[in-house]
């Protein structure tokens, strides 16, 4: 063991106490956020039943596909925040910032989903719905909510990077914080692109029917949703990478995590550029 310790490759790994704790198996989570995430996921059951019995379509697919997608994605989003909440410094968690963050991340997804499901049940648009002054006002309010949904992760990530709770390993903590910051930022940027463009398609398309399975992204014209997906999921992908690298010494590991993060960001940016040029993500 001592002879092998002199080679740089072995020196990279530092067995730290955190990596063997049970928290990888049963991580501490914020209960309110976890309950919300589970509720969102469970709503997929009656939504799926509704999809089976409702003949109506919107943009070529069942009216209930969009609520289904948002139940899943909002569930994943809130579950992510539920877990990473434990990495915030205690004075943030126990103070007004923690209370505000959790309350927002419980209320906003529920309201957003309610708005989307309401319009879906009427076979109408939820996003981009400017048909009446009331709908326009609601759509604007939903925009504010969406911004909050991505800004809270950015704030959480920054707080974790600056003074995070000593949980897990230093490198995993770094990946969590950076993942939240990059994922939230790219979510914001791509979200603005979607809002400003007035449609998720760039090009002449009116139906999601020929799109990718499950995701529905267009295979013929540019689709801004791809970049939004890739950007947002950095907040899961980078921590996953950080978990695999969790025992690496931070002086080696942090540059690795930063590199992976930049790569993921460039992937999302590339999808954004490609979409704006009217090219489909996958043809």
């Amino acid at each position, binding site marked *: 063991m001592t002879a092998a310790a002199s080679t740089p490759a072995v020196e990279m790994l530092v067995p730290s106490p955190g990596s063997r704790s049970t928290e990888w198996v049963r991580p501490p989570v914020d209960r309110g956020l976890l309950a919300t995430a589970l509720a969102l996921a469970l709503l997929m*059951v*009656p*939504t799926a*039943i*509704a*999809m*089976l*019995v*409702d*003949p*109506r*379509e919107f943009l070529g697919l*069942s009216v*209930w596909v969009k609520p289904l997608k948002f139940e899943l994605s909002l569930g994943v989003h809130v579950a992510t925040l539920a877990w990473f909440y434990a990495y915030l410094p205690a004075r943030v968690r126990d103070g007004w910032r923690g209370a505000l963050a959790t309350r927002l991340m419980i209320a906003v997804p529920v309201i957003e989903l309610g708005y989307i*499901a309401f319009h879906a*049940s*009427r*076979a109408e648009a939820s996003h981009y719905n400017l048909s009446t002054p009331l709908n326009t006002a609601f759509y604007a309010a939903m925009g504010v909510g969406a911004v909050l949904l991505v800004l809270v992760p950015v704030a959480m990530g920054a707080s974790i990077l600056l003074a995070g709770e000593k949980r897990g390993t230093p490198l995993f903590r770094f990946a969590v914080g950076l993942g939240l910051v990059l994922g939230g930022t790219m979510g914001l940027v791509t979200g603005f692109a979607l809002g400003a463009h007035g449609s998720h398609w760039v090009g002449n398309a009116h139906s999601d029917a020929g799109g990718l399975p499950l995701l529905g992204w267009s295979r013929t014209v540019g689709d801004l949703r791809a970049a939004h997906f890739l950007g947002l999921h950095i907040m899961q992908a980078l921590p996953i990478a950080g978990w695999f690298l969790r025992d690496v010494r931070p002086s080696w590991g942090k540059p690795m995590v930063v590199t992976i993060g930049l790569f993921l960001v460039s992937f999302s940016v590339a999808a954004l550029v490609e979409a704006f040029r009217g090219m489909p993500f996958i043809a």
Partner: protein
Amino acid sequence: MATTIITLERLFSIASSTATMGWLSLAAGVLFRRRALSTWVPGIVVATTLALIYAALLAAYWHDARGNFSSLNGIGTLFQSPGLLLAGWIHYLAFDLVVGVMIVRQASDERLPRLLIIALLPVTFLFGPVGFALFQGLRPLARIMDRGANRIDAAVGS
């Protein structure tokens, strides 16, 4: 206009079979004294399944609602939509079953005769509130019979 993946008629059969299985489980639970069959299966699994189907139908068909709840005629118009009609029927199935579960639970707490309860179950299944009313009427009678037995035993002095 696309067709549905499950037709309303098919869903009606599924719901009716599910409810029937709930009632059979309830009866078996009383007969064989198994709490899981008389409480958990009908009261939680079956009732929740029916409730989820009901919620889905409401979500899918509430836009079809032409009537209202303020007159008999209004309700008739409401149920002209087949989706809402099925929803109404499932509401009926679900809650009759829940009442059955509650009757069994209360009868078990008050140690009422099991044969009596098993006789009441089909009545509640077919005629809901009649079964419930019969149960409410028979509860005090059963308790009087119980007290009567005690008095006789006391008189004999055994």
